[in-house]
Every structure is written in C-alpha cells, then in structure tokens.
C-alpha cells in the first residue's frame, strides 16, 4: 500500500492535520497593556453617587429577598457579574497584566468547547480564562467551567464554583451545556497539570481518555484550543510532599518558595505576565458518528494537545521575561 492509499483509508482526525505555521514573532513583553477606562461615564451631571448607592441597595434587597434566577447547574449570573468578576478582574488586569490574543476564534454564539493547558497549583488559570472571555469577547460570553469532583466535595468551595457557573466534569453535564449553546471550558490535564513541578513548566501532561473530545463530537460542537502562559510562574512548585497529600486527601501538597514557609502569605501569587491565545476552532459537526470511535477521539485529542503545545512555545517566545511588564 502506498502512502497515498494508506492516507485515504485512515479515519478522519489526524491524517490531514498539520500544525499551523507560526506567524513571525512579535514580542509583547516590554509594553504595558493599554489601561481600560470605563466608557459609560454619565456626562450629564447626574448624581453618580446617589445612583450607585441606590443600585447597591437594590442589589442587596434582591439578594436578601431571593429575587434572582439560578439555572439548573446552580449558575447565578447576577452574583457572578456583581461580585466574582470584579474581584477576579483586579487580579487579571492589574496583577497579571493579562493580554488576550485571538478572541475572534471564539464563536459569537452557540456552543463551543474551550480546551486549555492547566497549571499554577491552584486553578487560577481557569478563573482568569472566564474573566478574559467576559472581558474581551464582543458578546461578553460566560465560560462554563468543568471542575474536578474534589472541588464539589468541599463545602463552600462547591457552592462558589456552582454559582460562578462551573459544574462537575462529566459527559452528561458537558453535553447538556453545549447543546444549550453554552461555551464550556475544560482542562483535560486536570491535577497532573496544576500539580506539576516548576521544572516541567509548559510541558503538557497526558490528556486522559479524551472524554472531552467525545462530548464535543456527540454534540457537533467546535473545539477551541487555548494556550495560557503565565500561570506556571505564580506558585512555582519546587517539591511535592506526597505522604502529607495522601494524609490530607488532596492530589498533591506543593512546596513553593513562599508556601508553607510564609503560611497564608504564601497564597499571594507571584505577579507573572500572562498571555492567553485562543486558537482557530476545530469543527466537529461532520464527525458526529465517530463519537464512540476511540481512534478518532484519540487523534483529535492529540491534535488539540499538539496545537496547544505549539502555541505555548510561540507565546513563550513573545514573552521572554516571565515577570516583565
């Protein structure tokens, strides 16, 4: 069998896939992102403070009276927009100086599966990705994260995660969200990604069984790979105390330059420079019947993985100084 014949026979997915040729590198490190100013300044001399006080009180009254809507996953858009996003945005804009590239690759409407690399000990990259989506996307879309069941085991944390729009990473939930036209964010590396040592930074870990791909295939949802640079440096893991982790029932117990040495102060992330790049979407609508074909699923997962890895290298060249401006 010649190479051409062989290529015609193979299942779709990997064979026709080639890594995109990277564009010439343009360094962004060294210039500060343009500070954003709120555009809607009431110029007509209205009493701004009176308005703010009235809005704040109305918000408090609505919260206390339970007069708000929550979707079936527990997502509370009002609380997310009024409380979580503004707090995270301070971290996103002023602490990490995040820059977002390729936001036009995220569909304006309908479902989408955003697949990213995971790093940074605590899953701050997932939170920053939701802020980036809300901040930079023209439609200000909400990204619905899929989280490990450990998150949903912990009291308080589980409810915060649900209110912010996250749900347990399982195929029924992912498919339900995507058929509902939502953007779903997933980090297939899971704890292997965020718990890896600083020495292994920006090396993508295993992508598991590719369950995220079969969910996307079954619903015909495009997959949007996203590369996040910067999260690796916020809590560099020097060592992992495995026995202590086992004792506490967590997947890893990190030792960073500041934790546990400085106690709670060690929770302050180092101010690294962040770049988030959304890659062109991979359409899957024509592959719906292959959702249960392990080879197609595996090849697609591999394609996504390689795209993210290549984009990470590209972004790292753009950002030679991890803690630069």
């Amino acid at each position, binding site marked *: 069998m010649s190479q051409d014949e062989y290529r015609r026979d193979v299942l779709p997915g990997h064979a026709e896939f080639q890594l995109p040729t990277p564009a010439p590198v343009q360094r962004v490190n060294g210039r500060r992102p343009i500070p954003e100013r709120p555009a809607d300044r009431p110029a007509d001399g209205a009493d701004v403070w009176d308005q703010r006080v*009235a809005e704040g*009180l109305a918000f408090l009254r609505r919260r206390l009276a*339970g*007069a708000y809507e*929550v*979707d*079936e*996953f527990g997502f*509370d858009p009002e609380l997310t927009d009024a409380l979580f996003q503004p707090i995270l945005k301070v971290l996103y804009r002023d602490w990490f100086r995040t820059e977002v590239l390729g936001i036009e690759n995220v569909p304006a409407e309908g479902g989408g599966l955003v697949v990213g690399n995971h790093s940074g000990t605590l899953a701050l990259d997932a939170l920053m990705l939701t802020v980036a989506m809300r901040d930079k996307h023209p439609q200000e879309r909400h990204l619905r994260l899929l989280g490990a069941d450990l998150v949903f085991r912990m009291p308080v944390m589980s409810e915060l995660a649900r209110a912010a729009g996250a749900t347990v990473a399982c195929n029924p939930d992912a498919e339900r969200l995507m058929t509902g036209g939502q953007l779903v964010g997933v980090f297939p590396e899971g704890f292997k990604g965020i718990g890896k040592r600083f020495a292994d930074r920006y090396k993508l870990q295993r992508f598991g069984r590719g369950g995220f791909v079969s969910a996307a295939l079954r619903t015909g949802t495009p997959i949007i790979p996203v590369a996040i640079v910067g999260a690796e440096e916020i809590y560099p893991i020097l060592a992992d105390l495995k026995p202590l982790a086992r004792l506490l029932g967590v997947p890893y117990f990190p030792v960073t330059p500041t934790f546990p040495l400085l106690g709670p102060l060690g929770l302050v992330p180092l101010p690294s420079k962040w770049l988030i790049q959304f890659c062109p979407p991979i359409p899957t609508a024509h592959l719906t019947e292959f959702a249960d074909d392990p080879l197609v699923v595996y090849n697609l997962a591999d394609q996504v993985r390689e795209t993210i890895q290549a984009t990470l290298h590209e972004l790292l060249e753009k950002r030679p100084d991890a803690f630069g401006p």
Partner: protein
Amino acid sequence: MLAGVERIRADARAATEAIAELDPEAVVHLAVTSVPAEPGGRAAMKEQNVIGSMQVLAAAQAASGLRKLVVRSSTAAYGASFRDPAVFTEDTEPRAVPRGPFARDILDIEGYVRGFRRRRPEVAATVLRFAPMISSTAETSLTRYFAQPVVPTVLGRDARLQFVHVEDALEVLHRSVIEDHPGTYNVAGAGVLMLSQAVRRSGRVALPFPESALSTGAALLRNLGVEQIGLDQIDLFVHGRVVDTSRLIREFGFTPRTTAVAFEEFIRAHTAGSTVTADRLATAERAILDGIRRVRAAAEATPAGVPAGSDRS
C-alpha cells in the same frame, strides 16, 4: 370525584387478596412513605414500602386481566454523590447505594418493577419519579421544614431544589392511568430554587449547621420523636437534586407549573412564620436610601470649614 367508586381499606396483604378477587385492568401503587411513621418507626416504614410493594406487585403479576401498572417513585432514586451530573435524566444510574432509608426503599421498589416488566412485558408499566411535592395545603416533612420560622441548613452547602405542585402530580397520575405511557418519567417543575433562595423567598431565617452536627442532631431529635428530618433530607440539602423533565413533557403533553410558581403558592399559604419578607426589605431599602440622601443633602448645605449657623449674623 370519587362518586361511584367503591373504597376498600386494607393493608398490603389484604390488598393483594383484593387484587386477586377483582382481577383489575390497572393497578396504581402509591403507598410509599418517605418518613418513618410514628407507630413502628423505620421498621414499619420498610415493611410498608418494600414488603408492601413486593406483595402488591406479586399480586398484580398474577392478575391475568391486567393491562396497566403505575408505581409511584421518587427522584431520590438517583441517590446522592459528589460525582453526579448536575441534571438527572431517566437513564442516569445512581453511583452508589444511598444512605437515606427512603432512597434505599425507592431503589428496591424500582428493582421489583424491573422484575415485573421482565415477567409481564405486555403490561404497560409506568414509574413516576416525583420531585418533592408542595402546595398550599400539602403536609410533608419538607413543607413542615419550610414552615418553621428558623430553618436549619447545612453549613457551606446550598442545594439546588425542585418541587412539583400536588395538583400537577395528580394530573400526571391521572393521565398515566387513562392514557398509555409505559416507561419511567421524572415529574418535577421546571427551573431551580437554591435552598438559600427558597428560605429567603419564604421570608424565613436560615441557621446553618455543620453537616456532622446536623446529622447527629437530627438523629437525637428523631429518637426523641420531635422532628422527622432524616438522612434523606440531609443528603438532599448537601447534594441537591435536579431532574430533566423533557421526556414527561414530550410523552404526556403536559407541563407542570415551574418550581418557582409552585413554591410561591406554598409561601402565600404559610406567611405566619416569615420575618424577612420582601415588603419589609423594600421598606428598609427606601428608608436607608432616604436617610443617606438626607445626610448627604445636609452635608452639602453645610460647606466644610464654615460652622453651621455662622452666616446668620
């Protein structure tokens, strides 16, 4: 409604005799209790739920003229686990045997129905998984819970709840008898209320306890015979339970009123225990806003540095 209906009061064993004697066309099995009743406690509850269902189903299986079987079940059949999907469809299997006695009974009953379906495949067997029922007059452990002025909740947990209005539950039951709908159906009102949200909407005050304290406290109270809040309720308040009702709406052509509407009706009938009502909050909001406006107006009228009243000379 019940004119021309002969009523026979009988326990499960006698009911099996009645079924054998009458050779019915349809059997509707509703005798499932969710909380241990006063005489007999949990043992009597299990006797009624599991043994009773077994006997009724065995009698139904022997009835040669039977065409239809309707069994009441509950959304508790999905169990409670941290790895559960957020929304259960009828095909979701429970991940583990639940710890609540009612949920365990429900799983047993559904197991008997599966056996019945295997042995009498020509009989249309309908299993209705009801969400907790609520209405202005219904009396269940959950309505008693929400009727208290201070409502104990689980610290750090906020469950997603769904209710179904009693009248809608009856309508679904009615349609399952007069129409043919074999299969399993979730019966719940669309939409979700968080437990905290439900407590706030009903104007009650939530009192959070750690889960372990609530479990032991509930067990102690149960022994004293005060309130029948069990592991089933605590599991519900920790994990929440939301079901997909698209199959019911598609097959029955009937949409139950939403969870929020059903709960609203319950609140209107139980205003006695509410302290933080929406009206009072609105009044407080207006008072605070007016107060702030008055203080600011006073501060603006008095320029800084010039003591008040100095321009009177």
